């Protein structure tokens, strides 16, 4: 039963985190600086999430030793800049990653 109650309380906590701004302040106008700041939540958090997935918990030095991940990330960024499409970038990055993983 321990696991069940951990899941229930974690589920309530997760819903609260997802709902806090939507349910709480959905009807009200936000201060201009907050409204402006929200524009950058997406870019900042997506970038932080990606960086965290690649480097946590071992740090950037350990990440740079993973040649397939580094090469795949560079190709992914380059393809995204060139084609402005996430599917092209995703396939290119994974192709490089799997090719180098097989070769090295």
């Amino acid at each position, binding site marked *: 039963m*321990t696991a069940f109650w951990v899941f229930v309380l974690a589920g309530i906590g997760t819903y609260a*985190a*997802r709902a806090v701004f939507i349910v709480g302040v*959905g*009807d009200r106008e936000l201060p201009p600086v907050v409204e402006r700041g929200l524009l950058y939540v997406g870019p*900042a958090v*997506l970038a932080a999430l990606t*960086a965290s997935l690649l480097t946590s918990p071992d740090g950037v030095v350990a990440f740079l030793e993973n040649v397939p991940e580094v090469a795949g990330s560079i190709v992914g960024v380059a393809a995204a800049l060139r084609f402005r499409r996430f599917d092209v970038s995703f396939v290119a990055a994974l192709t490089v990653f799997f090719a180098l993983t097989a070769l090295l």
Partner: protein
Amino acid sequence: MLPLMIPAFPFGAVLGLAIAETEFVPNFVGWLSSSIIFGGAAQLTAVTLLASGAGFFPPLIGAIVVNVRHVMYSAAVVPRFRQQPRWFRWFGPYLLLDQNFALSSIKELEPDEWRAYYLAAGGFAWVWWQIAVAVGIVFGPIIPEAIDLSFAVPALFIGLLVPSLRTRPALLAAVVGTLVTVAFAGVPNRGGMLIGGVAGVVAGTWADLRSDS
């Protein structure tokens, strides 16, 4: 949504495998976590800590800290929810997972269309996730370890993030978010990501306000 959720399938399957392998989490209860929490990173954190025999509070706190990032997602989609009916403002947050946030905060649509889009994408992700975890629990033990899918999720986020950086403050927000997260990579429970996210938002907002004056 499908390309976004394909990488979630192995993630769900790995979670299912972890559930199947531990005696501390009954299989059915572990599967229920997919509908109760509906957030892979938090579920995996809770299951991993439960499996290590960590008791009650470490798995609970770990799962909630991992999901604190959703506060930032919640803030980001407020403008989208402002013109939505009350029932949707209460139910919508349940479906606000990483993939749905990434897609729906980029897509430009009318309120009614956006709601339909959000519900369809979220509903699809929900069903897909229940199946993936169940498959992991049932078939996980026979997936060959040679296939490494750990890079699939970051590769996906690179492809989503980079094309959306169309302004100088947005680019600065992403660069600062990345560098600060890397600098704090050693903080447990992906705490570095929260610090990096906040730093990126501050940097982007600062650059935006500065360009006005």
